C-alpha cells in the first residue's frame, strides 16, 4: 500500500481539476454543446428565439419596392452607374495580370507573414498576420489537393500605393461546368476556408476566391508584386468599385476560359453583403448565398453596424430587400440567405423570418426564387457543414433545398 504524501495529493487534485478543464473545454468548443450553452444562458431566449419588438414593428413590407422587370432594369442601371460610372456591367474587363500555376511558380513575393500552413495558422499567428495571408505564400500548401489542375492569380491595380485586387482562381482537372465565387468577409482571408474550397475543387467546381478590400493580397503590402505598373481606369478606384469589381472580373475571366452552366456566389459575413450586391448587378450569377449577414439597415445592431458602409451610397437606389429580390429576378435565378440562429457574433436570432415571405413573394412574381434558412447547428460566425450541404443542394438542384 502506498503512503500518500502531501505533494502527490496536491498533484492528484490539480490533475483532476485539469481533467475537468479538458471536459469543459470540449463541451465549450464542440458546436452542439456550445449551441446548448448559448440557448440556456441568461437572455438567450430573448436573443435567439424571439423577434424583438422593435423589429416586429418595422414597416418591412414597404421596403420591397421592386415590382417588375422594368424596375429591376432601372435600378440595376443606376446601381452600375453609381459603382462603375457607366450603366452597363464591364463584361469585357479582364485582369491586368494573370499568373498561371501559382502553386508551382509563386514568383517573387514579400516575406510571408504566416508561413505556417492552413492547419496551424490560427494557433501560431497573430491576427494582423492572419488577415494578411498571401496567395503566393499559401498556394504551395494546396498543391496536392485532389482534382486540382492549377491555381491562377488574377490581379489589377486599383488605387495608387494603396489598393490592388487579387483573385485566386482554382481550376479543377475534371470540371463539372459550375463556377463558385467565394467571397470572404472581414478579419479573415479565403485561405481560412481551405477545406471548403478543397472540397469544391475535388468535386469538380471551378472556384474563384476573393477577399475584402484591405485583406490578404488586396493591399499594397507587397508593393513590388501588386502595386507597380499601370493603374486601372480611375472609375474603378472608388470605394464601391474596389468591393464590387473583383467578382465581375472573376466571372469575365471564367467565361473567357470556358462556358459554365451555373455560376454561384457564396459570401460569409461582410462577404454576404458583397454577394448581395454582386448578384443584384450581375445577372450571370445564377444562385447566390449570403451567409451570416444581410439584414435591412434599420434592423442592424451592435457589431452588425459595420456592414452599413459596404452598401453606403447604394441603398438610396435599392434597399437591402430590393437588392435581394434583384438577385432572384427571373426564372432560373435564386437567392438563399442563411442565418446562424445562435451566432455569437452578429446577425443572430430569427429577425430575418419577418422578411422571408416578402422576399419569396417578390421574387416569385419576377419568376425567381428567394429563400431564408436558419442554421441551428452551431453558435459561431461561419459556414457550417449543414449550411454548406444546403448550398450545394441548391447549386446542384438536388436535396431539400432544391428548386
Amino acid at each position, binding site marked *: 500500500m502506498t503512503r500518500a*504524501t502531501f505533494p*502527490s495529493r496536491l*498533484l*492528484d487534485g490539480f490533475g483532476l481539476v485539469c481533467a475537468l478543464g*479538458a*471536459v469543459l*473545454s*470540449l463541451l465549450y468548443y464542440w458546436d452542439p454543446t456550445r449551441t446548448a450553452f448559448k440557448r440556456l444562458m441568461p437572455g438567450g431566449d430573448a436573443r435567439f428565439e424571439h423577434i424583438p419588438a422593435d423589429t416586429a414593428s418595422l414597416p418591412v413590407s414597404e421596403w420591397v419596392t421592386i415590382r417588375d422587370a422594368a424596375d429591376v432594369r432601372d435600378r440595376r442601371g443606376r446601381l452600375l452607374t453609381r459603382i462603375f460610372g457607366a450603366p452597363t456591367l464591364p463584361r469585357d474587363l479582364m485582369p491586368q495580370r494573370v499568373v498561371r500555376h501559382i502553386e508551382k511558380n509563386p514568383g517573387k513575393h514579400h516575406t510571408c507573414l504566416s508561413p505556417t500552413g492552413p492547419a496551424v495558422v490560427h494557433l501560431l499567428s497573430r491576427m494582423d498576420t492572419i488577415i494578411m495571408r498571401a496567395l503566393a505564400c499559401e498556394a504551395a500548401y494546396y498543391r496536392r489537393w485532389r482534382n486540382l489542375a492549377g491555381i491562377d492569380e488574377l490581379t489589377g491595380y486599383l488605387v495608387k500605393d494603396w489598393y490592388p485586387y487579387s483573385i485566386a482562381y482554382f481550376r479543377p482537372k475534371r470540371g463539372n461546368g459550375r463556377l463558385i465565387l467565394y467571397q470572404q468577409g472581414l478579419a479573415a482571408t479565403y485561405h481560412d476556408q481551405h477545406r471548403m474550397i478543397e472540397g469544391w475543387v475535388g468535386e469538380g467546381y471551378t472556384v474563384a476566391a476573393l477577399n475584402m478590400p484591405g485583406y490578404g493580397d488586396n493591399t499594397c503590402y507587397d508593393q513590388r508584386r501588386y502595386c507597380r505598373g499601370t493603374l486601372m481606369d480611375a472609375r474603378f478606384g472608388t470605394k464601391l468599385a474596389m468591393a464590387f469589381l473583383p467578382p465581375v472580373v472573376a466571372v469575365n475571366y471564367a467565361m473567357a476560359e470556358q462556358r459554365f452552366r451555373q455560376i454561384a456566389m457564396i459570401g460569409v459575413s461582410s462577404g454576404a453583403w458583397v454577394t448581395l450586391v454582386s448578384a443584384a448587378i450581375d445577372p450571370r450569377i445564377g444562385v447566390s448565398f449570403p451567409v451570416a449577414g444581410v439584414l435591412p439597415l434599420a434592423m442592424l445592431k451592435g457589431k452588425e453596424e459595420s456592414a452599413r458602409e459596404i452598401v453606403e451610397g447604394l441603398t438610396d437606389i435599392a434597399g437591402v430587400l430590393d437588392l435581394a429580390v434583384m438577385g432572384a429576378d427571373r426564372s432560373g435565378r435564386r437567392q438563399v440567405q442563411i442565418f446562424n440562429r445562435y451566432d455569437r457574433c452578429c446577425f443572430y436570432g430569427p429577425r430575418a423570418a419577418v422578411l422571408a415571405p416578402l422576399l419569396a413573394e417578390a421574387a416569385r412574381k419576377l419568376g425567381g426564387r428567394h429563400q431564408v434558412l436558419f442554421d441551428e447547428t452551431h453558435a459561431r460566425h461561419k459556414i457550417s457543414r449543414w449550411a454548406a450541404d444546403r448550398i450545394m443542394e441548391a447549386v446542384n438542384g438536388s436535396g431539400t433545398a432544391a428548386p
Partner: protein
Amino acid sequence: MSRVSRIGGLVALTALVVAAGLWWESGAWQYGDLSTRGLVRVAGFSLVALACHGLAALLRRRAR
C-alpha cells in the same frame, strides 16, 4: 495509483480521444464542428492532467 489518479487520468484521456475524434471527423480544421483551437485547449488540459497524475504516482512509489 490512487483512485483519484485513476478517475482523473481516465477522464482526461477520454476527453482527449473524443476531442481528437470529433476534430478529425469534421475535417480537422478551424471551422470544423470542433475547432483546432478547441482541440488544442482540450489536449493542453488533458496532457497536464495526465502529467500531474503520473508525477503523483511516481512520488508515491518513491515514498513507499
